């Protein structure tokens, strides 16, 4: 019967969803702290150090502060959309976590539980769809504010994300030709105990990385919130936790795009230099899953650090430079990469040996 619900699956998925959502929230929370710490360290400062030991409670203090701020909805704004904006930003940011494989599987109560919320066979397309929806959060928020600067910021964000999505998609096509699958789980599986995709697609990865920075609205591509030109960008009119949601969504986006990048190019939860299958046989599936999860987390943390490192190194682009880079450099490069990859695959299939 189709409608018969397997309650065990229901419960296990529910627990998984709750833990992924709360996990990404906590990580986003602490990314704000780490961001400030990294910024401080790179600039020879000390960073937050007052709230708790080493300032570890700083995110809580920030969150509390945002909650207690006055909530202002401008008179001339479109109220429904004004509230919908940050909600959408947050929602789309969280939705990406559904298809990322956080680990292989664990064995509990005589069941193999896959550590992925939904292994859909078009996983990466889903990611792209959700990411493109993310621009609605910014666009709606900026438009509903009824403020020139917000609108300008939102327009910038929209055009930037759309332009960079193209190059990102083309870079990804080359990767898909190599892996031959759209499912993130299978992509990670293909990299297990083999060469990671970064070695097969270095140029593609570089393009993907640059585009990921642009998609997350991070420096050097944070023109949507260029405070010296646009007051505050698309969230000029936002206050209290609605602003907090926007800022939070940026960090969740950062975390999950790091996760996507790791899954696509850096072997996901593959432990480098270790044969994972043998490891799972030796120390048990569960321990192997925990180790793999930690390794995945380490890789993600590295990418988060990279995001921050770049932010505190490189100044912001000018808008025409941004568009030049996107349309005149990255897209041709991505096309070239796709062409070369395709040619190489064809040659290999025709038994041309290198």
């Amino acid at each position, binding site marked *: 019967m189709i409608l018969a619900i397997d309650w065990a699956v229901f419960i296990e998925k529910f627990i998984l969803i709750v833990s992924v959502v709360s996990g990404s929230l906590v990580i986003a929370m602490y990314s704000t702290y780490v961001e400030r710490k990294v910024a401080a*360290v*790179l*600039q*020879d*400062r*000390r960073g937050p*150090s007052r709230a708790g030991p080493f300032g570890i409670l700083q995110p809580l203090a920030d969150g509390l502060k945002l909650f207690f701020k006055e909530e202002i909805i401008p008179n001339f704004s479109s109220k429904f959309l004004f509230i919908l904006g940050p909600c959408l930003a947050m929602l789309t940011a969280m939705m990406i976590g559904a298809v990322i494989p956080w680990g292989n599987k664990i064995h509990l109560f005589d069941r193999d539980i896959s550590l992925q919320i939904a292994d859909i066979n078009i996983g990466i397309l889903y990611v792209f769809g959700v990411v493109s929806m993310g621009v609605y959060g910014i666009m709606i928020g900026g438009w509903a504010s009824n403020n020139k600067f917000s609108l300008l910021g939102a327009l910038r964000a929209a055009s930037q994300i759309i332009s960079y999505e193209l190059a990102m998609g083309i870079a990804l096509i080359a990767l898909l030709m190599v892996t031959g699958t759209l499912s993130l789980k299978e992509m990670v599986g293909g990299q297990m105990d083999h060469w990671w995709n970064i070695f097969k697609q270095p140029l593609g990865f570089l393009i993907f990385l640059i585009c990921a920075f642009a998609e997350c609205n991070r420096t050097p591509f944070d023109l949507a919130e260029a405070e010296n030109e646009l007051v505050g960008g698309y969230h000029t009119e936002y206050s209290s936790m609605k602003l907090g949601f926007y800022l939070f969504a940026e960090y969740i986006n950062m975390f999950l795009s790091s996760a996507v990048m790791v899954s696509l190019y850096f072997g996901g939860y593959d432990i480098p230099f270790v044969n994972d299958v043998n490891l799972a046989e030796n120390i048990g599936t569960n321990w192997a899953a925990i180790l793999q999860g930690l390794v995945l987390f380490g890789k993600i943390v590295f990418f988060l650090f990279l995001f921050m*490192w*770049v932010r*505190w*190194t*490189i100044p912001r682009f000018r808008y025409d430079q941004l568009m030049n880079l996107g349309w005149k450099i990255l897209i041709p490069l991505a096309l070239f990469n796709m062409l070369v990859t395709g040619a190489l695959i064809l040659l290999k299939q025709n038994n041309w040996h290198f």
Partner: protein
Amino acid sequence: MKALTNKAEVVSRKPMTWWERMYLPAILKGMAITFSHIFKKKPTINYPEKTRPFSPVFRGLQILNRDEEGREKCTACGLCAVACPAEAITMEAAERQPGEEHLYKEEKYAAKYEINMLRCIFCGFCEEACPKDAVYLSETFAPSNFQRKGFIYGKDDLLIPHPLEQPEAFAKAKGSRTKHPEGHGNEH
């Protein structure tokens, strides 16, 4: 035109080479520079917990000194008020009554002694003018208050803690500052 120094450098207007136009090497170089800053020593001093070491001639807030037995040294002679270029000091004198010998060192003492810390320029002339070694610039600094009247320090703010009753507070208020390092000779 002749350059004044040999530091002048001609600005290069050469178009960038292909390598330079790639920007990636330059970005990596920049990132290496920022990364190296992680390992640099931080110049920050965690202020309330740690303070910068002061020079021996540092001039902070005034204190009114007591002698070893805890008696107030000030005789309200007014020399500090006269010496004060900012006119921050006012005082009222009173006569010591019999039975108050343990409180005041001399027959006359300051019943009221006020320094307006907003006017004070911390020049240290009061300290130099004082013949009794009574007013003394400490190592305490940065007075803060919500109201202007809070900056007018009276005797209860200025008097040093009792050396016999609160020896630790006394030593802390007195600090390690050397008085009159140049030896102006006023104290003799």
